[in-house]
């Protein structure tokens, strides 16, 4: 299928693309730039009570007593709940089922022990937020300190055990991959090894978590407003945890101030707030503080691994093995154990590697759980593979770009089967590499680098040719359904309503979905409203994560529109007394000869229902649940140039060029925005960000003073370009772009710093690469 055919509707000629592919300004923005949008904390209900949590100050301890009596006597305090009060609430769920997985019983408030700093122990309910916070200090908790398990490799090897019933700290072990890795490595000319650390990161959505719950005792209905990425999955899980029928529970996600995976979860606080509202028959609200957010919202990454890569003297890669210790934290959140398996899936990178093996040892530690953070397992894989390719290039004295090029599957080898068991849908890796090299002037750069080195300057060039896995995903590969849903209606007045099961939170799908719908229906962009994030209005959906909203949810909408148009065509033919097959549809109008009807006029007729064919239902709406047959695989090349200040170790970006291919582009402006944001989060991991627990399990980086995020002045001008290889997996040809920047950028940045320091014999550096470490290398070598 070529692209024109792809965007055709089955019953008509090609639509004029007025909006798709254009830099359309976002329809979300006016309410946001005026300060009139509503995040959870902006929703005000009369008589709302406020909740605050007493949280553990120890990483691992036995609770010997909790005294709430003083707090309960404080003016304005309504209730205090502890672990023994909430035993009827079901455990916080983990959706991943892996063979042999050990699942700790994760109660919503700590029972006899605490397992991480920030573990909720008691919920204080008061008339206002200040009173609730004051009362936290009036709850006395006595602890018996227990030894904390902090280092993941040590956790795997023995020492103190967190859950005695499990016998050890290993949650699961898994080996995966295809090909005979031992023979492949044995037959290689060289085998290179490297220990690689993917430090823990905090997602830090600018809006933390927040929950407002209101129980209606007469109707026996509960409404929960939560800052989540998965309203429907949350509703199902909360219904099970709280024990309320799912059809009596409504979850609403108002404006969501960023997620990055941290809100792709079901949290103890969400269930507790719903339950408390039911106990007190009052609205209750909890707004997470930043300190709580860093302590008790999921972290990302947290892997320590050992890569072995085999190659021939000419640079051909023969095999790759990755033995990884995954730091899961104390409990399993929704997808905690699944993240390392995504790393395993992506270990082929964009290369032909005949034998690949991953050995995962996933361990419990006395820390907050890790889970999906932007990229979720794929940045780890990409970092491993790209760093390994650099090691090969350095060993063989081949340019890093050429080692990569040599191992690419050719454009005509797609679908490309990897030794990790995936089938990459489409790709042209060389085209993206060529383009990025041309933009940055690669050959000239290497010359410039030589000259700089002769002058004693430390100039480094880093390159990453990544591929990632998006549009998650086929249901067979997902714990709770991988499809997405859409309903499209044309109302009697001709306005178009789209209900999507995806739940965007900043990505801009209210606009990009409206662009697709407006083009397909031939109506104005302003005639389309996209509604999401309310289980009381929208049919069941999966949510927004894994760069899936447009590729899976957008496709569901696209196909629903085709169904709607089939019906509209029938009604139009009936009214025009024409043959349905001979009608044409263009620019929103059904015509035959000189007579015609707009689709909006058809919608009115469909609702009045006096002039519709006898075998046709009144109304004009269609629903579709789209199940993708495969994932999609966006890819690209990022090239970075850095210069290091020899006096201070400071790392300065000189150029950043990214050529990304996310398939067909609906709105280039939004795609650029996703890439910018992803790349900068990647810079955060490469240079600044790190969750640090000390050896007692105390969280050292518990505020934004200590957890360093990229700021405007840290960032170079990002030079973006694209290639466009449509995906055959969906009729829109789109692949997804939400995580690409975060996946592609990190190895390029670290590679550039390593390259700059290669005169000192540096082959690899651990992240975040701080000026201090760089300075030590330069000065140690002097």
């Amino acid at each position, binding site marked *: 299928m070529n692209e024109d055919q792809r965007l055709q509707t089955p019953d008509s000629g090609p639509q004029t693309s007025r909006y798709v592919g254009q830099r359309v*300004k*976002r329809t*979300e*923005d*006016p309410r*946001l*730039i*005026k*300060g*009139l*949008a*509503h*995040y959870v*904390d*902006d929703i*005000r209900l009369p008589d709302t009570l406020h909740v605050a949590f007493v949280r553990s100050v120890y990483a691992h301890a036995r609770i010997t007593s909790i005294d709430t009596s003083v707090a309960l006597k404080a003016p304005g305090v309504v209730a205090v709940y502890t672990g023994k009060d909430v035993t009827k609430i079901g455990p916080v769920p983990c959706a991943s089922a892996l063979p042999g997985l050990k699942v700790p019983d994760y109660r919503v408030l700590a029972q006899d022990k605490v397992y991480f700093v920030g573990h909720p122990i008691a919920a204080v309910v008061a008339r206002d937020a*200040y009173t609730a916070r004051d009362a936290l200090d009036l709850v006395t908790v006595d602890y018996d300190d227990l030894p904390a398990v902090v280092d993941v490799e040590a956790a795997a090897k023995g020492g103190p055990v967190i859950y005695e019933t499990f016998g050890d700290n290993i949650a699961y072990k898994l080996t995966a991959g295809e090909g005979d890795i031992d023979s492949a490595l044995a037959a290689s000319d060289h085998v290179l090894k490297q220990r690689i650390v993917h430090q823990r990161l905090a997602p*830090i*959505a*600018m*809006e*933390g978590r927040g929950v407002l719950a209101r129980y209606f005792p007469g109707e026996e209905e509960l409404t929960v407003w939560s800052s989540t990425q998965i309203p429907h999955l949350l509703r199902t899980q909360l219904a099970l945890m709280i024990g309320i029928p799912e059809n009596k529970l409504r979850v609403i996600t108002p*404006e*969501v*101030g*960023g997620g*990055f995976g941290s809100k792709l979860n079901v949290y103890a606080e969400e269930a507790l707030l719903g339950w408390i509202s039911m106990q007190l028959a009052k609205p209750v609200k909890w*707004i997470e*503080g*930043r*300190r709580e957010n860093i302590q008790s919202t999921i972290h990302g990454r947290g892997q320590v691994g050992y890569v072995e890569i085999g190659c021939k003297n000419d640079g051909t890669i023969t095999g790759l093995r990755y033995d990884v210790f995954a730091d899961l934290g104390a409990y399993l959140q929704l997808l905690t154990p699944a993240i390392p398996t995504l790393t395993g899936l992506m270990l082929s990178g964009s290369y032909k590697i005949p034998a690949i093996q991953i050995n995962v040892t996933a361990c419990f530690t006395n820390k907050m759980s890790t889970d999906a953070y932007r990229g979720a397992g794929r940045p780890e894989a990409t970092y491993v593979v790209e760093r390994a390719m650099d090691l090969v290039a350095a060993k063989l004295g081949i340019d890093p770009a050429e080692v990569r090029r040599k191992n690419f599957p050719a454009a005509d080898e797609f679908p490309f089967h990897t030794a990790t068991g995936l089938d990459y849908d489409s790709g042209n890796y060389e085209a993206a590499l060529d383009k990025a090299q041309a933009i940055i002037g690669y050959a000239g750069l290497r010359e410039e680098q030589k000259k700089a080195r002769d002058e004693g300057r430390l100039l480094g060039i880093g390159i990453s040719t990544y591929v990632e896995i998006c549009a998650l995903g086929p249901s067979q590969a997902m714990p709770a359904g991988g499809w997405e849903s859409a309903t499209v209606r044309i109302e009697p007045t001709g306005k178009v309503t789209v209900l999507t099961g995806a739940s965007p*939170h*900043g*990505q*801009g799908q209210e606009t990009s979905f409206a662009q697709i719908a407006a083009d397909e229906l031939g109506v104005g962009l302003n005639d389309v409203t996209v509604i999401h994030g309310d289980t009381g209005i929208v049919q069941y959906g999966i949510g927004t994560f894994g760069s899936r909203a447009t590729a899976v949810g957008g496709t569901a909408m696209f196909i629903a529109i085709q169904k709607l148009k089939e019906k509209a065509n029938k009604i139009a033919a009936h009214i025009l007394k024409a043959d349905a097959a001979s009608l044409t549809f263009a620019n929103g109008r059904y015509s035959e000869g000189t007579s015609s009807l707009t689709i909006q006029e058809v919608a009115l007729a469909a609702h009045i229902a006096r002039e519709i064919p006898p075998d046709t239902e009144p109304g004009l709406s269609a629903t579709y649940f789209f199940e993708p047959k495969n994932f999609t695989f966006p890819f690209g090349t990022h090239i970075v140039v850095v210069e290091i200040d020899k006096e201070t170790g400071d790392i300065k970006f000189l150029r950043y060029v990214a050529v990304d291919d996310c398939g067909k582009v609906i709105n280039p*402006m*939004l795609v*650029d*925005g996703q*890439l*910018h*944001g*992803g*790349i*900068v*989060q990647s810079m955060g991991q490469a240079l600044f960000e790190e969750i640090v627990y000390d050896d007692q399990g105390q969280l050292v980086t518990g*505020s*934004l*003073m200590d957890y360093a*995020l*990229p*700021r*405007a*002045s840290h*960032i170079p*001008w*990002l030079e973006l370009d694209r290639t466009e290889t449509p995906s055959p997996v969906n009729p829109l040809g789109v692949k997804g772009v939400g995580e690409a*920047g975060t996946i592609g950028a990190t190895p390029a940045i670290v590679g550039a710093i390593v390259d700059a320091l290669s005169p000192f014999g540096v082959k690899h550096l651990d992240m975040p690469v701080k000026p201090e470490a760089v300075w030590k290398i330069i000065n140690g070598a002097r």
Partner: protein
Amino acid sequence: MKKAISLSVNGVSHQHEVEPRLLLVHYLRDVLGLTGTHIGCETSLCGACTIVVDGQAIKSCTMLAVQADGAEVTTIEGLMKDGQLHPMQEGFWERHGLQCGYCTPGMIMAATQIIDRNASPSREEIRHGLEGNLCRCTGYQHIVEAVEYAAKKSAV
């Protein structure tokens, strides 16, 4: 215990009796119902709560309401004039300077100060001026372009 304060917010005078410890951001949000100003860190590090007090961009999460007694305060809700977007709001819309929108009101308020002080700032000056405001979505590049847009538009 409570203390009387009198101040102007977005051109409207207000008198209230407030707890001495009430933060200005909570006064705006909870007493006046102006929820456009957001809270992102409670420690002056993220800038989501930036407003303008007597001509100075400040972080309202670390200022007490009583300290604003007698002040003239402008919040994001007060930026439009005669139903028209402020050039900075327009710039953020035109140049896709926001995604989730949570940092946006603070970012816009801080950015208005940049062009108030320097009518045609360089990209480096804009980045320096935005250093006190965190955005986790945009990577800042479109925000820099939004400020450039507003500077040009304001100069006309």
